[in-house]
């Protein structure tokens, strides 16, 4: 549902429409409103008038992610109560979108109306919208008998938007006009279709008519919801959040032609509706017990596009897993490197982690065998290409100095990696969590080598290397007098000493030495400097660059917390994991069950609600995945051979959870969890799970 009748977004994979609450689109050059397909804006202007009058919104119904119904009336907001006309504008994703206009005459007199839709497109590339760049090709508008064609051409790059109407209409270069006659209490309907085309030099449309409209989408969504585990629980908000997460993941599924009709998660709306190595992998990991198919497609697509050669523009190396794949004009002309761009230090080890975890859940050994070459090339990348300082660590430094990414870890903003005093380190940078991922990747690859690749010698070697990496890491990254791991090593091997949430990922990877070091790390994560009451902050409160609304320097990221909670479970800190789950699940209620990308790092006791981060993407795939991973974590779900082990530790306030029909190599399994301790009745009735840090 829309908040306060703000922007309305409907989507189907990487096709999406962002409009105002009336359904109108009036895009400014830098504003992500309009119809976007494959990173190109196909419609930037779409305004409805009736008898030259604009309309205003009564309400919007966008319960289905792929369609919206706008209830609108003519005139200014102050006079709507007098309106004798009302309009329903129903918009559904299709090969662009279909829009059904229905006008109702509530009056006693017949009316004749001129219904006008102004249409235009700037064919902006999403990067142009983001960075306000100009156009280099030629735009045109052309009327044919029964249609308006808006087009853009730059050499062989040709995109069009065709507007047609099911019925009589007059077209001109700026839109279309319909006339309507309504009897008293009468009703009038027209359907307008907006269709996007990517034209080949032969004139053929390269975009498949890949959707047959909402009937198919609805079936698809229902099928997905039917195939996911059923959740029963005595705390209703968890059920709401769970359903919202599944619907959002369904909406963010993206079936580019390169995936051969299969779906993988796009990263987030509106800027990140594409394949991202890191985001697609982490979301697939979060969703494994619920929607395992996402992992299979993610692995196949990322394997297919694995780097094969050195290319500085794309920051590509042999064996490197891609960071981002885009399809817009600036990629076509290689003004931007994202076709695909490889500048990420973590996607390659994480690819191996997902491959192993996917097999442990699904038993799909065929995939592990099929991508053996790619898995070995990924391992080779870790040793031969990522070790930029020769110290035996995965490090990054961009070679594309113009448009490459400076920070190639998940905290990819410019100031995310800093010393305690706020200084920024030099390059190459080796962030701590990447070493954890590399360690985990080698341990897991050893299992795959032994079990599926029939290469026990290789397995032994990988385990040996992993053990050496762990020892080296615990020596070089550990800051003894502060009791935590450095955020990174800089190019000279100096410890970048800020206290950060990255140390939580280390628990997930298993690179932390048990005992004192693990205890100290957990103490920091759950301490007042890091834990806000809602979750673990990206950066500690005492650090030089800390800012509670700084993108990667103080906000709380639900996805980050879900992996930290998983890590706490791995090391046996059940209660701490449950506390993080409680905080994040509580916060979801303030966002109608839809966790944003990030929210403010303010103390919970201070604000009493999680403060919205100004430009956070929503829905965001790994935020939608966070409640799923938290659910796995509190239930303690873990594959063991061909069985699913359940070892719950529920947050206070939830006394039972049932998760039924969990798919996996065991077929379908059920998980039951009941809190055995004394229930505090007040706690159960309390709308929130945890009232603060304690």
């Amino acid at each position, binding site marked *: 549902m829309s908040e306060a009748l703000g922007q309305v977004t409907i989507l189907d994979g990487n096709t999406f429409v962002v409009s105002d609450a009336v359904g109108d689109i009036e895009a400014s050059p830098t504003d992500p409103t309009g119809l976007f397909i494959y990173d190109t804006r196909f419609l930037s202007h779409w305004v409805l008038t009736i008898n030259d009058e604009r309309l205003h919104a009564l309400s919007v119904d966008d319960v289905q992610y792929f369609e919206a119904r706008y209830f609108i009336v003519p005139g200014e907001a102050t006079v709507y109560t007098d309106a004798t006309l009302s309009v329903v504008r129903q918009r559904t994703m299709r090969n662009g979108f279909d829009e059904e206009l229905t006008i109702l005459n509530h009056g006693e007199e017949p009316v004749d109306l001129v219904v006008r839709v102004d249409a235009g497109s700037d064919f902006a590339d999403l990067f142009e919208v983001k960075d306000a760049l100009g156009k280099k090709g030629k735009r045109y508008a052309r009327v044919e008998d029964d249609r308006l064609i808006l087009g853009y051409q730059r050499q062989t790059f040709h995109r069009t938007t065709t507007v047609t109407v099911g019925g009589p209409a007059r077209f001109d270069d700026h839109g279309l006009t319909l006339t309507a006659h309504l009897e008293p209490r009468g009703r009038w309907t027209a359907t307008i279709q907006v269709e996007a085309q990517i034209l080949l030099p032969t004139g053929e449309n390269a975009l498949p008519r890949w959707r047959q409209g909402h009937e198919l989408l609805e079936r698809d969504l229902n099928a997905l919801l039917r195939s996911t585990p059923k959740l029963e629980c005595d705390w209703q908000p968890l059920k709401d959040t769970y359903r919202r997460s599944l619907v959002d993941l369904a909406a963010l599924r993206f079936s580019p032609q390169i995936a051969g009709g299969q779906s993988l998660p796009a990263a987030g709306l509106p800027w990140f509706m594409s394949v991202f190595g890191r985001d697609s992998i982490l979301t697939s990991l979060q969703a494994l017990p619920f929607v395992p198919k996402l992992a299979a497609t993610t692995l196949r697509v990322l394997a297919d596009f694995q780097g094969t*050669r*050195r290319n500085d523009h794309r920051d590509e190396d042999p064996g490197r897993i891609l960071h981002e794949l885009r399809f817009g004009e600036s*990629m076509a002309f290689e003004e931007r490197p994202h*076709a695909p761009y490889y500048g990420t230090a973590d996607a390659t080890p994480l690819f191996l982690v997902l491959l192993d975890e996917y097999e442990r859940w699904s038993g799909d050994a065929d*995939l592990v065998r099929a991508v053996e070459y790619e898995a*070995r090339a990924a391992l080779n990348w870790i040793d*031969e290409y990522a070790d930029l300082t020769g110290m035996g660590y995965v490090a990054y430094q961009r070679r594309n100095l113009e448009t490459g990414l400076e920070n190639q870890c998940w905290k990819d903003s410019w100031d995310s990696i800093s010393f305690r005093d706020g200084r920024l380190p030099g390059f190459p940078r080796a962030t701590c969590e990447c070493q954890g991922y590399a360690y985990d990747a080698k341990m897991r690859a050893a299992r795959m080598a032994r079990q599926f690749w029939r290469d026990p010698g290789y397995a032994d070697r990988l385990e040996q290397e992993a053990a050496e990496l762990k020892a080296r890491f615990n020596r070089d990254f550990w800051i003894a007098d502060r009791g935590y791991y450095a955020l990174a090593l800089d190019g000279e091997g100096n410890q970048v000493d800020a206290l950060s949430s990255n140390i939580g990922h280390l628990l997930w990877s298993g690179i932390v030495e048990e005992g004192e070091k693990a205890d100290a790390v957990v103490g920091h994560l759950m301490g007042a400097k890091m834990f806000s009451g809602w979750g673990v902050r990206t950066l500690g409160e005492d650090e030089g660059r800390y800012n509670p609304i700084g993108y990667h320097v103080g906000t709380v990221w639900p996805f980050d917390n879900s992996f930290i909670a998983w890590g706490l479970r791995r090391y046996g800190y059940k209660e701490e994991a449950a506390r993080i789950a409680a905080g994040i699940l509580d916060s979801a209620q303030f966002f109608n069950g839809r966790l944003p990308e990030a929210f403010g790092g303010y103390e919970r006791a201070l604000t009493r609600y999680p403060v919205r981060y100004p430009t956070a993407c929503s829905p965001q795939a790994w935020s939608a995945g966070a409640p799923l991973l938290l659910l796995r974590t509190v239930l303690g779900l873990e594959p063991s051979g061909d069985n699913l082990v359940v070892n719950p530790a529920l947050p206070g306030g939830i006394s039972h959870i049932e998760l039924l029909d969990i798919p996996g190599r065991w077929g379908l399994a059920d998980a039951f969890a009941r809190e055995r301790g004394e229930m505090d009745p007040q706690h159960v009735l309390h709308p929130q799970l945890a009232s603060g840090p304690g």
Partner: protein
Amino acid sequence: MADSDSVERFFDELGRRGHEPLLDRLNSTGRFELVDGGQVEEWLVAVRGGYITVTRGGGDADYVLRGERHAFDRIIHGDAGSVAALIRGTMAMYRKDPDVMFGLVTRLFAGPPESRREWVDDPRLVAEGQRDRADGTHG
């Protein structure tokens, strides 16, 4: 700009590479249609179990890659990206077999192993690839 020999050299090298583990999963035949003015030059590239056979001329294929010869020349030299060429419209791919993945097809343009720069050729990789073939791999 297009050096007519460099395209021939590309296909010639591809055909003589023998086993190419990068292509183990491609298992399909592609027809390359290179347009040069009014002329269309055709090449058939068949990959089975990572082994490549190149034939000059047309024939049945699972997919067709069609584009300007000079644009193709830029791709095989690594001056232009193949995904970018597809988005730009200088190259088009037609699939008869929907299971042919473009990502794998782009690997035909990786160049010979020695040209991938700093690639540490690991003999294990080749050996593994050959063993895979005996198992039959997924395409």
